[in-house]
């Protein structure tokens, strides 16, 4: 699936992937890919800058650590991030229900 299609939902997807616990940038990309059975194969140039933006917005907290001699930045949800994810979930359910009501064929009336 193309990154543009996901543009409006990227923040919610990233927050959802980090709900289970802290992850570094590449682990976020892999988790998105795995959870969507390969459909959300987002490019590096989309995921990393979005993580930085969410951190600046106070929805994620980034921490540096050293793993195997390498510097690693790990992200986790803040309290504001959890609230934002909850709001995004609610908005998505409303949107999906409305779209489904329009797109899914209505059941045939039962024959009398």
């Amino acid at each position: 699936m193309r990154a543009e299609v996901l543009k409006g939902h990227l923040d919610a997807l990233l927050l959802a992937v980090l709900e289970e616990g802290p992850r570094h940038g590449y682990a976020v990309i892999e988790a998105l890919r795995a959870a969507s059975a390969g459909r959300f194969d987002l490019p590096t140039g989309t995921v990393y800058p979005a993580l930085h933006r969410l951190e600046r917005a106070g929805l994620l907290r980034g921490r540096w650590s050293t793993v195997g001699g390498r510097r690693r930045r790990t992200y986790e949800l803040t309290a504001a991030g959890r609230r934002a994810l909850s709001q995004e979930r609610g908005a998505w359910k409303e949107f999906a229900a409305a779209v489904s009501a329009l797109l899914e064929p209505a059941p045939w009336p039962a024959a009398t």
Partner: protein
Amino acid sequence: MAGGDLAGSPAAAPAPSVEGWLTDLAGRLAGPRRVRDAVVAELEDGLLEAVEARTAAGLAEPAARAAALAEFGDPATVAAAFRPGLAARQARATVSGLLRSGPLLGLCWGATLLASGVTPWQRPHAGPLTVALPLIALLVVMIWLAALVTFATTGRLALRRPGSAGADSPQQVSTDVRLAAYAAAGAGLVCAALDLTGLTTLAWFTATAPGAVAAAPAALAAAASLVRLPAAALASRRCLAATRPVG
């Protein structure tokens, strides 16, 4: 043509290196050095993770490296994606630096005035002070307004505003970030004008009323302004450069 597949063809080229990719990326990023270094370090870890994931799956190292680099994309595209965020960070860093230096400079010039006993209402030495002091006050207000614009357009509230997530793209930084960059660049230029006003006033006093100005604080204030003036101008240039398309 058969000859096209011989030495010199893309197939014969050595596998690209992670270091080369990172160097290329680093050369294309604009913004505060500390942030740029952090971006490169983070992507280095991600790239090496991607290589290790492939070698663990059984791929040979050169093939794993080539596949990981292909997954990360070309450095120009990645650098372009970081451009809006780095431009915002550059604008905020510039304004923060200017606001931190302001009180120090104000203290130096204020001490010069107090030590010299020169005030705008004091004749015959009032001279350019009657013009310089209101001008300085106006410039300081302009700097604070520009700082407010920069912080407001790049702060948490702006980033959490609905629709802000998709506002930036590699081709076009958002209006907010562009406004922040222009405001920060403007604040830098106004700071430079402020320093120039102080230096010009000092030069006038030195030329027309030798001995009227306390030498030690005046020298300190002049030195501080001579350091900040080019630094503020350079910071302004960096703010504007950070919004330009990645080369």
